[in-house]
């Protein structure tokens, strides 16, 4: 059955069976990424979830004024935004489930049991090695953590510049708390500025060009 656009249902990325020629890993004909990520998220086992949460606390360490990154269900967020096994890895953050879970497994229980300094050292090693997993997990933690409603509430409380931030732009918008132009400032706006009329345009002195090709 096709969707409203007449496309075959590809929950995320083009199916592996897509013919291969073309550029960028295949044709563009399937693969509209679903808003909100996967309808059926990638599942992690308990050990993998524990590593993921330990990573979240390493990237954004606990602070008494803020929700812990390990306690805002980034496991579910990551599960929605990585590419399931068997699908082409076409969309941001370009993390495929097989490699992603393998990276979690590799860090394993030792990472969970480590103290914050040891965890940081292990994570720094991934960064230095330019392991693709480093950028994937950092992006997922940043995008995930700051999208959670409980973190939005903490932003309002803790960051003066964010006191009015309410998360999704709509339906509220910010019209109620935006400063208008003040009349004094506006009255001064026309003090500077001019333009050339069409017939005033003449050849400039090109001998003054300072660049060379």
């Amino acid at each position: 059955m096709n969707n409203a656009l007449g496309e075959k249902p590809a929950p995320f990325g083009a199916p592996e069976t897509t013919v291969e020629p073309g550029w960028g890993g295949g044709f563009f004909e399937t693969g509209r990424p679903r808003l909100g990520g996967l309808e059926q998220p990638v599942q992690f086992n308990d050990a993998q979830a524990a590593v993921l949460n330990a990573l979240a606390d390493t990237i954004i360490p606990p602070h008494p004024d803020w929700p812990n990154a390990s306690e805002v269900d980034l496991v579910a967020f990551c599960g929605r935004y990585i590419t399931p096994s068997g699908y082409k890895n076409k969309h941001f953050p370009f993390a495929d489930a097989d490699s992603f879970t393998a990276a979690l497994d590799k860090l394993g229980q030792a990472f969970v049991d480590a103290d914050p300094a040891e965890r940081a050292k292990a994570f720094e090693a991934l960064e230095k090695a330019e392991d693709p997993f480093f950028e994937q997990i950092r992006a997922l933690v940043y995008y995930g953590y700051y999208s959670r409603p409980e973190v939005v509430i903490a932003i309002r409380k803790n960051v003066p510049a964010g006191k009015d931030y309410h998360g999704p732009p709509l339906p509220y918008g910010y019209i109620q708390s935006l400063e208008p132009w003040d009349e004094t400032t506006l009255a001064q706006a026309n003090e500077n500025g001019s333009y050339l009329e069409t017939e005033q345009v003449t050849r400039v002195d090109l001998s003054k060009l300072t660049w060379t090709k």
Partner: protein
Amino acid sequence: MASYEEVDVLIIGAGPGGAGVAYELKDTGAKIVCLEQGPWVTPPEHPHYHDEWEIEKQRGWAYDPNVRQLPEDYPVTGTTTPYMMNNVGGSTVHYAGHWPRYKPVDFRKGTEHGLEGTIDWPISYEDLAPFYDRNDAIYGISGLIGDPSYPDRKNAQRDPMVLPGKLGLKYAKASRDLGWHWWPSDNAVITRPRENREADVGHGNELSGSPTGSLSTPAHAHWPYNVRAGVDLRPMSRVETITAEGGKATGAVYIDRNTGNRHEIRAKIVVLAANGIGSPRMLLASAQKGHENGLANSNGMVGKYLMHHVFAFCDSWFDEPVEGFKGSFGSPMYSHEFYHTDMDRGFVNGFGMQVARSFGPSYAAMGTHTGYTAPWGEKHRDFFANHFANHLMVFMFGEDLPVESNAVTLDPEVTDSDGIPAAHVNYELHPNDIALAKYGIEKIFEATRAVGAVETNDTGVLYPPPAWHLMGTCRMGNTPEDSVLNKWCQTWDLPNLFVVDGSTLTTGGAVNPTSTIGALAVRAGEYIKRNYDHITSQRTTPSNADAPSM
């Protein structure tokens, strides 16, 4: 029964060019079909109501089709970041809505310096001015009349200005203190409700569109009215070839992307409006007997003189709230202090400073516009607290020279999902562009430091440029030797084939091009309406002097 259908006007592409022409012709009784390869994006497909609105900007709402890879997109190869969307409304479905006009000098850059491929436009600001006004009224534009850096435009309709917030007020103060020009921006954002459209509530994130219709795009401002009047808009219809015979365009063959079936439409007039990359791609891909180098390309100029503007992103942070997440993304104000050529600077052309809003906390953590990513680990919390919403970004964007080798061609090896060759872009910055941009970056930080910026970061001169603006590749000109189009947007080679989009622009100015593309679409549509019989009887394209007047 004929294996093709016949119409009066066939329009290819439902963005500002195609929508604008259709709008002018919609009540004439002409049979009009518009083919659009993408869908009509619906409000629920926008991310604005979702907690995850920020990560979605990188996915289905990514600007670059090579990243986004939606079914309606086609690959664009080369060192390029082409920012476009393929859907009803075209790339305006994710634009900021900055709505400046060209200035008179922008139509006379050939006279002013004539460097590289620069020529004068075949029309003047005065020729286009009434069409700017008409186009603005169709879209719905907010702003303030009276900018001394422009000719009078007292006939333009304006909704009240968008609110500046702390961000707009801060850069206005900086400009004022330095004695620079500044003015509240015109924005394609309505601040009063219209039919089927809500007024802006300062939500921001217009770079992912606006599901309420507050952002003025052809999807809201044109197509509901075009369709109501009987224009046959066909989304999911991808043109494969524009056909020609006997020195005239005859129509197009297109693929219905719902069924995969091919159909032929024959038309008395064909209007190509597929953007500054898509239109030359389509003309080149339509090479056929008698047009071996592509349609409208007997002089080899289709695809050449590609312009994007030269860009740098300039971030400044303050030790007080700026609240850039508030307010419509379209610029609250701009400065054209450095717009005009001043040879004492050592380069021609100039640049605008356009104050932009920010996004949310994830954007702050991920490094805003300049890749200044928040540190992970123990320094993260402090960094976030000091940077989120204390941030002000200014676009430095300047006029780039039209260079012949900056060009759109066909990629010989890569195709879209229907086997149509991909576009290939070659674009290099010119030394004049680089000199201009470096000067611009300095000036922007001079302003933000004057009002207390405590930290700055910039991208340097961006290469490849963020190619929101796709211009010049089928340009209007003065003779069949210097251009692809005459002054009425007719191709020199085929009198009944028009090109009306960013590729039409002869030079780029140092402003966002959509208001000018829209004005040209109104003008071309009006011209076709008034001269339909003449145009359809022309066997060759008239010179600018001989063409019937409006």
